[in-house]
């Protein structure tokens, strides 16, 4: 019920708006508003709610989205930006209008598939299947927050490791040095440790099972290799090198903005505003932002604003 077209903001008749929006074919014109601010007014009068999951990356993405939409004239309710575990349910129920979801989560958790029947183009398959639920997926960002194996940068340079194939070869040659730190879920999942070892035909010499939070601090001490999430800020903080998944074993978790189809139909400008932003969200960019929040303690709001500013999206 959050797709409200501005009640209070029916100040001016939509003449200006019609000019501005002629390219967008926006049918939200009824909300009309007087003139664009600094950034333009494609979404003048729109009242939107952006949700997030309860971790930094999701909240940063939500902040980026909220600020970009506000810059385009929309009013964004910040109550939901703090994150919740039931964000998908909230989207379906209409309590929020959009949030960033991951393609892998969409395929496995939302659509109920397994990782053994992965389609060639995961994003296209997920977007198509979820359309039946009236949920639209905007084109996915290049950032891919998925499982990876990492080593300390020092260890990577010493042994010239850059890909998983290098690592498999190294472990075959040095069977005693193939210790891996990992959390329970990664150890158990088919698309985690068991499948990885099968795909690259090698076996870690020892699996050290730890809480995920401890894994990042133990690399280079308790174990040479570690399970990490590829865009985690602690990769930078602990000077780790993420090994490239050269056989493309791990499932892709590209982030994409999901919203109800009716919201997109009402405000098609959202897709146009978000397209260049989404495209700019690479692993490097989001990892640096995650580190700024998780390691340096900055707020998601400031980090998102800074990034939008630096990349010229608020111009």
């Amino acid at each position: 019920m959050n797709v409200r077209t501005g009640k209070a903001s029916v100040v001016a008749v939509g003449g200006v708006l019609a000019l501005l929006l002629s390219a967008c074919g926006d049918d939200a014109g009824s909300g009309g508003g007087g003139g664009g601010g600094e950034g333009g007014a494609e979404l003048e009068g729109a009242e939107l709610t952006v949700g997030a999951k309860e971790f930094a990356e999701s909240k940063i993405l939500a902040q980026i989205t909220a600020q970009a939409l506000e810059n385009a004239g929309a009013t964004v309710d910040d109550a939901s930006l703090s994150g919740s575990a039931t964000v998908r349910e909230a989207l379906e129920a209409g309590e929020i209008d959009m949030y960033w979801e991951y393609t892998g989560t969409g395929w496995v958790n939302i659509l109920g598939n397994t990782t053994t029947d992965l389609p060639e183009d995961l994003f296209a398959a997920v977007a198509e299947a979820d359309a039946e639920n009236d949920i639209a997926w905007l084109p996915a960002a290049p950032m891919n927050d998925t499982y990876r194996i990492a080593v300390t940068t020092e260890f990577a340079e010493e042994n010239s490791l850059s890909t998983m194939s290098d690592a498999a070869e190294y472990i075959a040659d040095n069977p005693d040095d193939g210790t891996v730190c990992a959390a329970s879920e990664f150890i158990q999942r088919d698309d985690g440790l068991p499948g990885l070892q099968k795909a690259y035909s090698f076996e870690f010499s020892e699996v050290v099972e730890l809480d995920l939070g401890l894994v990042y601090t133990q690399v280079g001490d308790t174990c040479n290799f570690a399970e990490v999430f590829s865009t985690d800020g602690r990769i930078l903080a602990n000077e780790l090198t993420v090994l490239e998944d050269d056989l493309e074993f791990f499932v892709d978790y590209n982030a994409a903005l999901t919203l109800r189809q009716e919201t997109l139909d009402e405000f098609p400008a959202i897709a146009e505003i978000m397209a260049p932003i989404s495209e700019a969200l690479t692993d490097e960019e989001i990892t640096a932002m995650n580190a700024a929040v998780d390691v340096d303690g900055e707020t998601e709001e400031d980090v998102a604003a800074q990034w939008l500013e630096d990349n010229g999206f608020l111009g």
Partner: protein
Amino acid sequence: MTQTEGESGAPDLATAPAAAMAPVRRERRTLGSYLFMPTFLALVLIGLYLYVQSQELDSIEQRSLNASNVGKAIWEHVQLAAVSTFFVILIAVPLGVFLTRPFTRSFRGVLLTIANIGQAVPTIGVFALFAVAFLFLGFPAAIVGLVAYAVLPVLRNTMVGLEQVDENILEAGRGMGISKFGVLTRIELPLAVPIILAGVRTALIINVGAATLAAYINAGGLGRILIAGLSTNRLTVQIVGAVLTAVLALLIDYLAGIAEDVLRPKGL
């Protein structure tokens, strides 16, 4: 006003303090009561086995719920609980004796506070601290964490057990020419055994429960199964981990109860 009835109609005034001093005193159990708990636990295990057999297990569940993995987890768990309780007794009983000697009165409070802190700090916090600050992981780290957590009940009960011994009995012992050490080993400790054992039993149960957290620092145990079930959202695996932990705790409590009966000095 109805007062609590004294045993065998003895006057209330005489029995009240005695009952307060010997809280663990109870009748020897009958054969039937000895058989109840093992029978109950066996039925629970059979029920669990049949439940798991009736489920179609996917690859993730099979990875956790196979005989060798479950057996290994149980064995690791028993080791964690047994070794940690062994060290708890080794530390807490002598310390309890020491702290009830008159000359230790001045620093008794400090040591008790330390034992209190050990129990107040969450075990998972101790584990994380060891891992992050000292890179201390695995079985030894788990034992240190569990010992710190379970020292207090044994220490407290040892002290209470020794302090509740009637001063007149000690006086009589000394009057008979028994040395200070003899009074401790031949009168005080035997009289304190039931209360000390009650503390040990508490420590064992605490350790069986807290040992599930050891899986977070590579020390294995039934927590490994429980956490695998939770992290992959597999209900069957969670149930197996939880039920096995509960059965183990009840079984160990049952065995400790028998040990209490056997080890309690005759005539108490």
